[in-house]
């Protein structure tokens, strides 16, 4: 299973792998917000937590359809399904690879973008903490959605519609963590809820994704 992870990471970095797409989207999206909203620092400070979390979420969404689709198209998924690797393990590794290539870079650049949006000083730690805890849930939920739509050609629209409602709790509590942290209120409670969503997703969704894959491979 470590081989699967290594292969996915290699593929992501090689030409055409799509690594950096989400990161570039996050950078562009967040950089453009001050142009659209105007340069009033008070307004930017107010909306920064929501914008940063929304940008991270949409950036994650952008690369979801690649998780299983490429392996399905070239026949690799059939062959892995007949190999000793359990599909549950495959789903978990795919989600992990997606997080390493998408979620982790977003976490690392988020403080820089916080600066662009004039995020108040105490918010940075909460921003990174909430993204570190929250983005794995986005990857796990996304892998489940990708498994559900794996047989659908150009299934990006269906995938977005399936996944977006499931992303809402993470977005609400993630953005709330940053907003409360930035204004000096108690941010621990929403942060714990974000962690809870992530743990629940990681525990349940690889199994759900594997079942969806089995149905789609029939």
């Amino acid at each position: 299973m470590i081989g699967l992870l290594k292969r996915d990471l290699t593929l992501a970095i090689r030409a055409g792998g799509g690594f950096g797409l989400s990161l570039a989207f996050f950078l562009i999206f967040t950089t453009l917000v001050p142009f659209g909203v105007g340069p009033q620092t008070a307004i930017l400070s107010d909306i920064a937590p929501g914008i940063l979390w929304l940008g991270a979420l949409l950036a994650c969404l952008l690369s979801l359809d690649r998780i299983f689709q490429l392996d399905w198209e070239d026949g690799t998924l059939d062959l892995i399904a007949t190999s000793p690797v359990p599909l549950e393990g495959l789903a978990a590794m795919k989600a992990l690879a997606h997080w390493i290539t998408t979620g982790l870079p977003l976490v690392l650049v988020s403080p820089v973008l916080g600066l662009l949006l004039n995020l108040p000083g105490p918010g940075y730690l909460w921003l990174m903490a909430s993204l570190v805890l929250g983005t794995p849930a986005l990857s796990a939920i996304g892998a489940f959605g990708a498994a559900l739509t794996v047989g659908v050609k150009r299934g990006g629209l269906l995938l977005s519609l399936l996944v977006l409602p499931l992303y809402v709790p993470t977005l609400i509590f993630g953005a709330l963590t940053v907003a409360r942290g930035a204004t000096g209120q108690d941010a621990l409670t929403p942060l714990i809820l974000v962690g809870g969503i992530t743990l629940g997703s990681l525990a349940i969704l690889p199994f759900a994704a594997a079942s969806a894959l089995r149905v789609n491979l029939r």
Partner: protein
Amino acid sequence: MNLRVTDLACARGPAQILAGVSFAVAPGQALILRGPNGAGKTTLLRTLAGLTPPLAGTIEADPDAIAYAAHADGLKSQLTVMENLLFWAGVFGTRDPAPAIAAFHLTPLLDRRAGEMSAGQKRRLSLARLLVTGRPVWCLDEPTVSLDAENVARFAAAVTTHLAAGGSAVIATHIDLGLPDATTLDITPFVAKRIRTDDPFAERMG
């Protein structure tokens, strides 16, 4: 007995394709599946490989005995030949890819990316994967597509070696591979009566 199938009924999607298929493949034996396009050879092989659950009947094989090779090569075009083989070697538990490389004459191509190879070269790599799996029962779906005569001979030699080592093979093919002791099974008699008239696979023969 490596593989015994009793009264098997297979479906593809909502449509039942085959019914009442029974055969047995002993170690060292190859079974050639024949039948016109759309008869259900791929469906039967996918059922044997465990991708599609059978509607009825039983498949007796050791767990993890079957190596499946589909129409699609299952190669990653950004990875080199060696990386592709090592990946599958890792997935199936580390086996030495050297015999596979030798059997399909891949040595000159090892550092080539799969995306830069011809269809026939990709197929050779895809077949070499079978040797890496180390599994005894090969289920092959039209393995010789886009291979030239020389490489069909290499493939036949690889199958013969596999059979001599106590393995067995179920091969859907339209050409004569020249395998010794191969039995041929025509699946046309097992084609199920189509139940649905709007069946998307309903291009019927006979």
